[in-house]
């Protein structure tokens, strides 16, 4: 062990960064009874046949040597077929969701984008594609270029999203500064609390809403190989638990993900319908979209 092992210039009270302030939940004033706001994230992703794999393989990216038609087409199934089952289930439950979209999909899936907008869902920016991962090895100019390119693709469709989710929810140290520079006010990459957190950036605050990876369908149904019933039970349990916590302590927020090529498969739809119906029945739970959750939170 070198003699400098215990040294770290940022060894101090609070976090070792200034992105947001340390806040211990026990020390917050009780603010109950409050409501639980749930947001549902439906990412629309483009997986090229030719991923660079930099700086890591995006979850769901090609697996076998080129041309991996198997994984290209199973991912594409989500954007062609699976997403429509999710849209129907949301409609039947009377719920709106947020759809983070890779900019490169906007042209390819134009009828889908129109359908999502008509149904009143929120459309968020989700970078250029799954092969455009933001990471600290990018120069500032290159990373800004990714965001600029994303916004250009959106503005061609008359869309000006203020909510952002990074491809693979990955960032560089400077991503939040760039996001506010380009006009974003809400981010779905982080999950450090049960309430929105205002991040400090060079250009003003960026609201981060808790997006639970532990409830992500890719994570539970694919990586951890759980059944759709186990997945559904855990979603409903989370919402129930947090509704009770909101009642006792004050407003709470949670988000979970429905990946079209995972949750949208025929054999999983019954579980999605069951989940949404159970959530819809609960009092003091509102399923909403990030932009609205943010503005309500700021007005509080």
């Amino acid at each position: 062990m070198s003699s400098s092992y215990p040294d770290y210039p940022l060894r101090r009270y609070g976090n070792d960064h200034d992105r947001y302030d340390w806040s211990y939940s026990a020390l917050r004033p009780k603010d109950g009874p409050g409501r639980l706001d749930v947001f549902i994230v439906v990412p629309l992703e483009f997986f090229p046949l030719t991923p660079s794999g930099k700086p890591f393989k995006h979850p769901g990216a090609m697996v076998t040597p080129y041309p991996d038609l198997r994984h290209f087409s199973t991912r594409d199934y989500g954007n062609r077929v699976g997403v429509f089952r999710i849209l129907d289930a949301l409609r039947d439950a009377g719920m709106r969701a947020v759809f983070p979209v890779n900019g490169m999909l906007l042209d390819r899936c134009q009828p889908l984008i129109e359908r999502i907008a008509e149904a009143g869902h929120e459309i968020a920016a989700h970078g250029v594609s799954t092969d455009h991962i933001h990471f600290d090895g990018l120069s500032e100019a290159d990373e800004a270029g990714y965001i600029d390119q994303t916004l250009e693709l959106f503005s061609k469709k008359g869309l000006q999203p203020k909510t952002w989710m990074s491809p693979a929810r990955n960032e560089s140290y400077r991503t939040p500064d760039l996001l506010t520079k380009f006009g974003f006010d809400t981010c779905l990459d982080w999950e450090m609390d049960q309430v929105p957190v205002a991040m400090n950036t060079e250009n003003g605050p960026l609201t981060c809403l808790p997006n639970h990876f532990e409830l992500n369908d890719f994570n539970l149904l694919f990586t951890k190989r759980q059944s759709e019933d186990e997945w559904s039970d855990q979603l409903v349990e989370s919402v129930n638990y947090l509704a009770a916590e909101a009642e006792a302590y004050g407003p709470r927020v949670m988000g979970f993900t429905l990946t079209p090529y995972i949750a949208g498969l025929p054999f999983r739809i019954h579980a999605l319908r069951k989940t949404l119906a159970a959530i819809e029945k609960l009092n003091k739970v509102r399923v909403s979209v990030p932009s609205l959750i943010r503005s309500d939170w700021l007005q509080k």
Partner: protein
Amino acid sequence: MPFADPNLYDYWPYEDRPKIVWPDGKKLAFWIAPNIEYYEFQPPANAQRQPWPRGNPDIIGFSQRDYGNRVGHLRLMELLDKYSLRGSVSLNIALLDHHPEIIEDCVKRNWEFFSHGIYNTRYSYGMTEAEERAVLEDCIASVEKQTGQRIRGYLAPALTHTEDTIDLIAEYDFWYSCDLFQDDQPQPLKTKTGKLVSLPYSLEVNDVITYGSLSQSASRYADVLKRHFDQLLEEGEKSGTVMCIPLHAYLVSQPHRIRPFEEALKHITAHSDDVWFATGAEIAGYYRDNYWDQTVADIERRGLSTGGTGFSGQVTA
């Protein structure tokens, strides 16, 4: 120059498609695809993929698959007989030479054969066009010679392709490809010649995926199949859907699995009023004759055609 998007088919949203009705007003076309495969004991080395994860020889891997050939297929055949289901065999063509007895049992049952390459341990990566043509010509001629059948379907061995594969099978007058998993309805493929349908092969409910990749139990597999079927049957009311059960006897015919699997067949065959039980070529042929033009016209009408053919023309998303 590799392509980011294969451009083998156009984006075509599942909603608001013109209606498909299967023969006799059926809502769902159901087919079952036993994979009858030969995995070599001493496969040639391939720079891009090692056939056996442990290297050659892989005793458990090889003998488990051989169990499928020696014991498993018969169990599955007898089970399908019980429910009057005909298989569409995804065939490694070399099995015609290795185990002709299995082929005879399929022929006796009037099962269909389609090509799943020559050996499942030989991949298409890096093949020249001439090599790929030779493989296809071998497949067509070998099956025809031994069974009298002209094969019409293709599933690349171990799901490995070149940029030419789909064009070549179309040129050799194949009717359907099981190589793409983009939909629960058939769709025309954009090939230079021919009339090739992308036929849903339901890879996500393949026994290899459910038992293997998703590590699910025998009874869970039956649940998955029943739920998959129920959903597609419900949707078939709006426009006809396709469901396939791709199987591997070395997995599904294991003694702890075959009876739980039977529960799924019981459930599915109880819906015979609404389900067309068919083979791959029957479904693809019916689609080509009755719905091919309708699909092409709808994609055109909605402005979704990107033009060109696979691995050419427009390449961006």
